């Protein structure tokens, strides 16, 4: 069994608050982050409460001046499809928007809290992902979105509240499930400024993030075994890291370190810049076509996979900004929550603006207990299953369970050792009887019954023998595992991870600065070139566009040091297109040639049959 001596521990009789405090994470933000974990009660007093009805109407239910946390949880019957939501920032007029944007700029300068983007995300993707990115930006015009002025006003409003009472709050929860003690730390943010502040995917009012720690009990003490951080695109086992995994989990005096994504507030185990990939929403038929093309490209043509509809977004989790928690100047203010906490359990609505975004990226999230559609969050009701830990017993229990299991199999093997000869003997006796009945037509009925019985007993015997063999192999594996657990040899801490979030390496650009500039201007240059073609050479518009596009793609590939890869792809696509042209032009000749080849092949086969 693994020793617990190297782990921080706490008495299992400690209060929930003490438990939470003992292991509360140290969260490190990126320089330039504008929003930090905040107090929901204070936030609510700055909001108004609204209802969005299925017919598209919106109704103000509680004005901001009257808003309190008690008011929030008042039950309000509504028709199916109604969405209740808070509104942190009211609709701004043009002058208010301009003022908010100007003040935001002043505030950032004053706080010296400017974000340095470094190598821009657009320079990290290729030319086609940039085209997809432009389409994504255009899609925001059609989808509901939170405006940049709203983001600026939210930043100003948050800063004002923060100045009044500087406090960094987390909402802690302690649950006991299947031998595990689960500590959940919920962080509430007034705003998610990933898109407006850090070139990310989305913006929305309010944000909830969560970190979970899993502890086991041994001799009256609780020891941490796993840490799971909620993050984009990761689920189940991939979310958690073992406490002793120093490669993946940083600790400061027994407190896990979380690196929060700038604006998105997603949690990462390692500091760095993570490439989140968003796929351009496509209609069903286009998705099907895209899949078919991918299959043809990778399987038939055996080419490396590539998806031009992939848009690279960077989540900056640099950890070079404010730190809150153990060893940092800012400390946590913990608040305990559970199902009895009214604002958590009774308010099913959204914690910020419902932006009417059909893909939900710009709509505010619901609280810690609920999803946006009001259904319960799995991370709340099933914290073990959330991190794929429901199949794993706590270490002290693992040994006991393993021993019990081995003993069960052993006793079954003993049973089988007696059972199999008995069954084999029974089968032989039946076989002898059957032999005695042969050649006696009047005993046909008994013969048939006996035959049936023999078949049944034979099947049972085969099953018992198979079970014994299988149990033998199982026992061998379990015994090895038992010895491993007893000797205290730790498993590979990454064995459970299928997909690991890894910070992206700095892209090796041939001409880094030139590439960055090119990434910023290339799409516009392409549009200008097309405009020039339309104006100066309209007769050659399609031919010109094809040539310009290829030239841009090739120029991009030279910048990115991917010339060979690009030329290979472009040429292969041109070859496919040329093949189609040739097929259209010479289909008769091709068909005749194929038929002649088929005829020769068939004739050769038949003639070979004749001669042999």
């Amino acid at each position, binding site marked *: 069994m693994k020793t617990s001596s190297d782990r921080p521990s706490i008495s299992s009789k400690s209060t929930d608050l003490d438990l939470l405090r003992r292991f509360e994470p140290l969260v490190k933000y990126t320089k330039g982050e504008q929003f930090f974990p905040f107090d929901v009660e204070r936030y609510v007093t700055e909001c108004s409460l609204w209802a969005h009805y299925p017919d598209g109407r919106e109704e103000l239910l509680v004005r901001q001046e009257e808003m309190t946390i008690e008011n929030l949880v008042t039950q309000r019957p509504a028709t199916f499809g109604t969405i209740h939501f808070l509104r942190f920032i009211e609709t701004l007029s043009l002058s208010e928007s301009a003022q908010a944007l100007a003040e935001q700029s002043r505030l950032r300068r004053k706080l010296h809290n400017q974000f340095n983007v470094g190598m821009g995300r657009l320079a990290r993707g290729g030319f086609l992902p940039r085209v997809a990115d432009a389409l994504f930006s255009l899609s925001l015009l059609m989808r509901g979105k939170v405006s940049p002025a709203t983001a600026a006003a939210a930043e100003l409003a948050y800063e004002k509240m923060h100045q009044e009472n500087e406090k960094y709050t987390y909402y802690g929860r302690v649950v006991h499930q299947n031998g595990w003690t689960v500590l959940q730390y919920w962080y509430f943010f007034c705003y998610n400024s990933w898109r407006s502040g850090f070139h990310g995917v989305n913006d929305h009012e309010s944000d909830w993030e969560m970190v979970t720690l899993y502890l086991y009990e041994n001799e009256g003490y609780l020891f941490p075994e796993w840490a799971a951080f909620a993050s984009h695109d990761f689920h189940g086992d991939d979310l958690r890291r073992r406490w002793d995994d120093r490669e993946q989990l940083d600790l400061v005096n027994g407190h896990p370190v979380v690196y929060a994504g700038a604006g998105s507030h997603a949690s990462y185990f390692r500091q760095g810049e993570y490439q989140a990939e968003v796929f351009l929403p496509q209609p069903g038929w286009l998705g099907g076509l895209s899949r078919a093309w991918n299959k043809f490209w990778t399987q038939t043509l055996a080419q490396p996979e590539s998806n031009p509809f992939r848009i690279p977004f960077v989540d900056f989790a640099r950890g070079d900004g404010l730190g809150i928690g153990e060893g940092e100047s800012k400390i946590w203010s913990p608040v305990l929550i559970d199902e009895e906490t009214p604002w958590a359990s009774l308010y099913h609505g959204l914690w910020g603006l419902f932006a009417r975004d059909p893909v939900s990226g710009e709509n505010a999230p619901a609280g810690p207990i609920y999803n946006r559609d009001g259904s319960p969050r799995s991370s709340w009701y099933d914290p073990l299953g959330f991190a794929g830990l429901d199949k794993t017993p706590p270490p002290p229990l693992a040994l006991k369970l393993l021993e019990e299991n081995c003993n069960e199999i052993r006793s079954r093997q003993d049973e089988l050792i007696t059972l199999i000869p008995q069954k084999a003997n029974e089968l032989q006796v039946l076989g002898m009887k059957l032999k005695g009945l042969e050649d006696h037509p009047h005993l046909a009925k008994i013969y048939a019954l006996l035959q049936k019985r023999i078949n049944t007993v034979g099947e049972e015997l085969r099953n018992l023998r198979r079970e014994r063999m299988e149990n033998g192999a199982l026992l061998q594996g379990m015994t090895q595992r038992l010895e491993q657990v007893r000797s205290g040899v730790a498993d590979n801490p990454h064995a459970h991870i299928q997909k690991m979030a890894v910070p992206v390496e700095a892209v090796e650009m041939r001409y880094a600065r030139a590439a960055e500039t090119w990434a910023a201007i290339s799409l516009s240059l392409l549009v200008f070139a097309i405009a020039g073609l339309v104006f100066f050479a309209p007769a050659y518009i399609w*031919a010109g566009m094809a040539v310009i596009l290829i030239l841009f793609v090739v120029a991009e590939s030279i910048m990115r040091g991917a010339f060979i890869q690009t030329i290979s792809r472009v*040429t292969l696509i041109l070859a496919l297109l040329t093949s189609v042209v*040739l097929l259209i032009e010479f289909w008769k000749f091709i068909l005749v040639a194929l038929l002649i080849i088929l005829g020769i092949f068939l004739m050769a086969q038949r003639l070979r049959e004749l001669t042999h």
Partner: protein
Amino acid sequence: MGKKKNKMREKRPIAVTVIAIVIVVLFFVRIYQSIKPLVEEAVLRNIYTASIFMDGVLTPHGQAVLKSLLYLILAIGLIIVLLGFLKMRRWSWVFLMAWVGFSMVVGLEDYFFFSEPNYVIMVSDVIIAFALSQSDVQRIFGIRSDTGENIL
């Protein structure tokens, strides 16, 4: 054993041989294309009398000579690529891929927007492009690693 291994490593995929044959065919096509304008314009017969430029503009004779020269350069280029290709040099793979890519752009532009394209060249370009994309060919020219990963 070592000799056998070396032999195995040196063994050319069939696609390489196919490409080499197509390059030879293309060479003869280019030679034919370089001779054709000379014959059509009877350049060789009037080699001493006909002028190439008149008033700073190319004469039909001059155009034929220029065309012929261009095709001759292409033919010589093909021979150089063929030599590199048979020696399985990486640069020859890259050069050939870029070349057929460019040639197909010209062919497709001709087909869709201008005159009748040269279908023989188009067919040979397609064959070369597909053959160059074969994973074993890419591996032998160091474009892909042994595990099938792209190492560019």
